[in-house]
């Protein structure tokens, strides 16, 4: 009788111990999650991005334990609905996002990519800033010009972005790019 009781007690204690270990592991996993979402935005247009800007964003993300959010900005022609599907733009964005994700993975930086639509690149950026929260925005000044964000867009970004903005201007000789 006592033997049965002891075996039963041992089983009960074993189950209780197992439950406690499992629940503490689960709590541990939960506590690993950051209280705030730390995100670094890396907006870009077109099919290449300055490698210096990407590396800077990755270094920051790694140092701060932040997530890198590369965002392909797409300008939707006025005659189309803003929320329409943009397969041609997606076709350009996808390989770039893959290339960035691959580089981020080698450095152990988590990536949460976006493709954002707007009537202009600035409008797309504005919509993204309204929707998401960022601690930093990293932009390459070499990505500006006719094909991407203009000087005015960068001034606008400095004034309006509710985050620290880093505008990188690589040396003229630095032509390293990340392309798909």
């Amino acid at each position: 009788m006592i033997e049965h009781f002891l075996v039963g007690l041992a089983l009960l204690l074993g189950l209780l111990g197992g439950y406690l270990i499992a629940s503490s592991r689960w709590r541990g996993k939960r506590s690993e999650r950051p209280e705030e979402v730390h995100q670094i935005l890396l907006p870009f247009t077109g099919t290449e991005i300055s490698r210096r800007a990407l590396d800077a964003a990755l270094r920051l993300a790694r140092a701060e334990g932040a997530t890198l959010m590369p965002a392909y900005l797409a300008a939707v022609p006025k005659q189309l609905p803003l929320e329409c599907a943009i397969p041609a733009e997606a076709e350009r964005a996808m390989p770039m996002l893959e290339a960035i994700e691959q580089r981020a993975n080698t450095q152990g930086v988590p990536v949460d990519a976006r493709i954002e639509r707007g009537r202009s690149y600035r409008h797309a950026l504005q919509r993204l800033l309204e929707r998401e929260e960022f601690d930093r925005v990293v932009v390459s000044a070499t990505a500006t010009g006719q094909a991407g964000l203009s000087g005015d867009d960068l001034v606008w970004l400095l004034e309006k972005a509710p985050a620290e903005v880093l505008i990188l201007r690589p040396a003229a000789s630095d032509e390293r790019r990340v392309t798909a």
Partner: protein
Amino acid sequence: MERGHYKIFLGMAAGVGKTYRMLQEGHAEAGAGRDVAIGYLEPHKRQETSDQARGLETIPRRSVDYRDVAVEEMDLLAVLARRPDLALIDELAHTNPPGLEHEKRYEDIADVLAAGIDVFSTINVQHLESLNDRVAELTGVTVRETVPDSALGIADEVVLIDLTPEALIARLRAGKIYPGENIQAALDNFFRIENLAALREVSLRQVAEDVESKRLTLHRVEPVGTREERVVTDAPKAVGERLLALVRPRPSSQRLVRRAWRSAQRLGTDLDLLWVKPPGRPIEGEEERQVTALRQLASVLGATLLIEEHDDLVAGAARVIAERGSTYVMVGESSPPRGLARLRTPLPQALMRATPPGVDVRIVAHRAQKEDGS
């Protein structure tokens, strides 16, 4: 009266040689002894086209006053009265000015066909209604003169006049498409190599789809029981793929979505994204943010995000797969199972068992794991 035979010459842009080829074939028909007449020709001041029209009878045009300007249009009644065996009618997407029998030229053509006259006509791919938005997105140019896709669908034959973008630009530079003063503007706007490459792809796809749909129509037979006949009847079902990607509201799902979308593009099929959500649990916080991101991505790609509440992932997914008629399911690679989870059937196998026969399941590897393994 038997309807006339209808052949359309389709091109990716002006200048590929649709009208020229139509006239060439018109000459060949005339040479074979048929009565051929030009119902309407728009040579666009291109010498080669005008030269090619020589020797073919042209039915006189009809002059119509439109906004105090006399414009020359196809004379539908004259074509019907002349009654050739074959009428060559250029630019089927053209909009007629008020006062003519029909608003659009393809409606005039329908009358000519109904009168038992064969018709050859021409159109550029951007004029097709269903492709208009896609072309506008690709090129930034919106075409106002559109025709319903059925205007192409009723053709007995669609001939693609294909030219590489480089060759077309060479023709443009040589002044064979537009007069000299317009060449640079055309090169800077519509006639860019990336625009033309995209339009070429759209045209090729359009003709491939047309061939496919006609093939399926031709092969449709009533199932009467023999195996051979059933195989033919089942052929259309086998061709129609539908892709579904099983996602979770996490950044890691994006790679799966990208892969699935690329596969869907290659197969020319629709893409569904499915998240099987545990019932009763509200979507909030980080999960809500990720669901919004997935929804945005689906919208950008033209995919459909489905959220199915079910306490069993496999049963929930199988229900949607059957309902949507998915033929191809893509899942992300799972983390290695621990503890009692080792005893569970892996998700791909469980899906294979739970879904109807013929559904393929593909696993997309994590990029980091793949690299580690290499």
